[in-house]
Structures are given as C-alpha cells and as structure tokens.
C-alpha cells in the first residue's frame, strides 16, 4: 500500500513538472528573448501604449457592463429554479466554447448593414464595426459568462435562510441584498469581474473580425508579427502578458480562503 502511494506521488510529481514546463517554457522564452532595452523602447512607442490602454479600458468597460447586467441575472440563476434553466445556463456558457472568429462573425451578422438591426443602428449614427463600441460589444460577449458563473456561485454560497431572516427583521429585498448577500458574495463577484476583464484583454479572434481598428493590444501584436516578424511582436506581447499576470495574481489573492491568507 505504502509503495503504491509512493509510486502515485512520483507520477503526480512528474506530471506536475511537465504541466508547469509546458505552461511556462514558451512564456519564459518569450520574456528572455526581449532585452530590457527593447522593452523600454517598446514602452515609448505611442501606438503600443495606446493599444494596451485600449485593451485595458475596453476590458474594464466589459467587466462593468457584465457586473451591472449580470448581477441580477446571476442572482436569479442562483436562487430560482424555473423551466428551461439548464438550457439558459448552457446558452450563457456558449461564448466560452465556440471558436472566437465565430463570435465575431455572429456579432457582425447582427450589426452589419445586411441586417435590419445593423441598419437601425446605422440610421441612429451608431457605428459598431471598426469602433471602440464594437470592441466593447465583443469583449462583453466573451467575458460576461465568466462574471455570471462566478457571481452565481457566490450567491449560491450565501444560505437563502440568511436573506429570509433579514426580510423577516424588516429589511426590503434590496436592503437585504446590500446588507447580507453582497457582503458575503462580493469576493466571488470581484473574482468574476477580474476573470471577465482578463478574458476580454486576451480576446483576439472575435475582435479582429469586428474591429481591426482601432487596435487593441492582441491585434497590434498580430499585426507586428505579420508585418515585421517575431522580434518586433515579442516586446508588446511581454508587456501585455505582464499586465495579465498582475490581474491574475490579484484574482488568486482574492479567491484564496481566509484561513490560507492568514
């Protein structure tokens, strides 16, 4: 029994090492390929900084929209059972499983001028294709499921009896949400927003279809790679990866259980 356990530990260790190598080796190679001078030079490039800033703020707007629209919906999914709930939950997960260019094409087919909705938007002077609005629409589309799922799990973890007691003590539904549900679920909501933003920052396939210009960082990286080769695209990629790393570090810290943090 002991020997079997030992054997399993060795296998687990080897698998773990392989996974870590697989994940970090390409990234480390990319980081070490860009010299500090190159990085500083890239940081001074206005186009690069603008694209990273655009990636960040459009992703943040997507996170904000997901928070505002997704919160009541996530609460509903956590608290109520209704006919077709499983189907609705599958629909929410859809953007996570379909290929990214398909997302872009799907959005284009709705907001393009070949469709009545696109014509209505155009008539109102609202431009989606090749605009910041287009980027935000795409990023919200791909990022929102992450927020909704995380917030839903957060709400589910709050016993509904706490809310019931709060209501019986005189608090309205809204007060109960603010005083009881939110303080106990805010971590999951924050994690959801961060995951939504992180997913939005990394989006390329759908953005490139809907809004090649103005360029977000992944599109710029792709363009530089296509036009000038690997060495020109690497520093931009390193900078974007650094930003993503910071975001995910924050995510990990917030999602850690209290006891571990202490």
């Amino acid at each position, binding site marked *: 029994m002991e020997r079997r356990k030992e054997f399993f530990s060795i296998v687990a260790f080897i698998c773990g090492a392989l996974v870590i190598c697989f994940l970090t080796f390409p990234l480390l190679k990319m980081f070490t390929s860009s010299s500090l001078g190159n990085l500083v030079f890239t940081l001074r490039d206005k186009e690069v900084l603008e694209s990273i800033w655009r990636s960040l703020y459009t992703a943040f707007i997507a996170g904000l929209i997901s928070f505002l629209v997704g919160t009541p919906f996530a609460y509903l999914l956590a608290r109520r059972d209704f006919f077709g709930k499983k189907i609705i939950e599958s629909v929410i997960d859809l953007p996570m499983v379909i290929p990214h260019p398909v997302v872009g094409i799907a959005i284009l087919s709705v907001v393009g001028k070949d469709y009545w909705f696109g014509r209505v938007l155009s008539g109102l002077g609202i431009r989606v294709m090749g605009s910041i609005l287009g980027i935000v629409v795409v990023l919200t589309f791909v990022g929102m499921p992450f927020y909704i799922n995380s917030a839903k799990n957060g709400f589910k973890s709050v*016993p509904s*009896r*706490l809310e*019931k*007691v*709060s*209501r*019986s*003590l*005189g*608090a*309205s*539904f809204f*007060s109960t949400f603010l*005083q*009881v549900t939110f*303080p*106990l679920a805010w971590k999951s909501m924050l994690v959801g927003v961060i995951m939504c933003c992180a997913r939005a920052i990394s989006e390329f396939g759908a953005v490139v279809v809907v809004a090649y210009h103005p360029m977000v960082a992944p599109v710029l990286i792709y363009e530089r790679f296509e036009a000038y080769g690997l060495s020109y695209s690497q520093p931009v990629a390193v900078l974007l990866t650094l930003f993503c790393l910071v975001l995910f570090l924050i995510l990990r810290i917030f999602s850690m259980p209290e006891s571990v943090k202490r």
Partner: protein
Amino acid sequence: MIKIENLCVDFPIFSLRNINLFIKKGEFFVLLGPTGAGKTVLLEAIAGLIPVKRGKIYIGGRDVTDSPPEKRDVSILYQDLALFPHLTVLGNIKYGLRFKKNNPVRAKKIMSELIEKLHLAPLLNRLPETLSGGEKQRVALARALVVEPCVLLLDEPLSSLDPSFREEVREYLKRLHQDTGITFFMVTHDFEDVLYLATKAAMMNQGEIEQVGEVSDIFQKPSSHFVANFVRAKNILSGKLVEKKGHIFIDTGNIKVEVTNCNLESGREKVYFTVRPEDIVISRNPLSSSARNLLFGRVQEILHRGPVLYVTVDVGEKITALITKASFEEMELRKGDKVFLAFKATAVHVFV
C-alpha cells in the same frame, strides 16, 4: 392574533392543503409532526417567505396574505439560527432596528434588557463562528425579539442543541414568552418541548392539520391513528363498534371493551381506541368497583421506569398498565402471573 383560513401552498413535490388555525394573542403554540409533514413550509408561509396558492393569513387582525415579509411584523428563528456571519453579535442583534421605525429610546432599552436577560454582554464583539451552540441560540433570540414582533416563529430551535443547552434554552424561551407577551409559534417534534412550553398545539401530517387543541387533548385524546402513534400512545387497539342493550362496545375479535361518549354510529367496521396505562387498575382478584371493563390474563412483560413500572398483560390483546413501585412490590408480580385489569368505560378514547 394569527388566523389562517383554507391555506394552500403548492410545490412540485409537496403541498399544504386547507390549513385552518386560530392562535390567540400571547399563546405559546406548538406545531408537531414528523419530518416532511410541512411544518417549516407553514412557518415560512406565515412569514411571507413562500408564495401562497389559496387562502388567507391574518396577523393581529390584518390580512397579510399579500404583504411582503418585512411588513408582517413576524420574526423567524431557524433551526440553524442563520446568524449573519459577517456581523458581530451586537451587529446581529441591532440588525432589525434600522428597518423598524420604533422609538429609538425604547428600542435601545429593549435591546439592553434582552442583552441582560440573555447574558450576552460579554459576547457583543464576537463573531458568530466563535460562539457555542447555546450562545448562538441566545443571540438569535435577541435578534428576533429586539424588533418587538407580533409573532415569533421558531423552527425546531432546540433540536440542534446538546441536551444540557436544550434545558437552558427551553428555560429562556419560557421566560421570554412570559415576559414579552409575544405570541410564540414553534415547530418541534420533541415532546418535552411541547409539554414544558406549549399552551396549545396542533399536529400536522403530509401537509394537513390532523388535530388542534389543548396539549393534554393531543396526548390523551388523539383524534386519529396517526396522532395516537405519533404521541406514542400505548394500548392502541382496533375493532368493530357494536351496540348491545343500550351499551356500546368495541369488539376486537379477542376482547370486548365497553365505551361511553362515543359519537360514532355502531356497526362501524373499524374504529381505534386507546386506554392510558395510568387509567388501568391491575389486581390479583377481580375488583368490585364501578369500572365497566374487567379483563383477565397473564403478565407478559414488566418494564421498570424509575418510580413506576409498565406491566403488559395478555388478555387476548396485549394491554399495558402502569403501577407504582410500591404496588408492584406489594403484589409481588412476576411474568406469567394471572391478573385482572379493570378500567372505566369513560377511560376508553375512541377515534377513527
């Protein structure tokens, strides 16, 4: 104080049907019933926490059927207590005060009184996760009572406690009920709770009320076989109701027992009856008393229960009688001894 008329609640796999209850102001009402009977559902329906399909709920003379929970003047205390984990004990107790438009001076006074009565002063700055079961219970009680509700709904508040805490909390509940005059509506399946606390009780089974009345009636005069079984009534027997020369008997097939005060028509094929063990006299020789039922048989089992004993005698049916230890020793009863059992016709409680 609480009036429930023809209340129906529908869930996909469970429903409450035609619940009718009337609970007077200041009463300590207990709802008894097995797990899954619908007790908590009824409690939550009164609190407005689940939708009602049909019927009316009145609290303090006001129709609250369509009112949201926060407008019903009802506090609820769950079995798991549901203390807010992110608030301190003081935060929990004060929680309801910000929503109730009570006089702040009075609210503060009531809060101080509750903190004192329930010995919560040393706990005020602690978080619920650091409290013992009994302490949590006291905090939950203070939180529920500080808002001065018309009704306090308690969902098996003692079942999760250790026996030592249970005694303590039971005592608190009794004292708080007496001091505050608030109507208490408690769900339980613990007989000790009922006997110690309740002024009135109801028995629930499969979403319906089986019997409502004085606690003594439920225990001594169960209205159905289910209630009799649930309250662990002894000597539950069944037979056919027959009339002979103006007297009514129940014929079990093995014995005939005379009954009075029976409103059921004779000829009924199956009725149930119970006789309380303490109403049965056991003797070596036939008694010349007013008891209309005299049965003869052999002692089959003797169970010692402290100062009393349960003696089961096979008289054709197995009937258990209660005797004191002194009588038992005086009679020198042994298993297999021949004895007589006597009980009055009025001691036989008949139901269907």
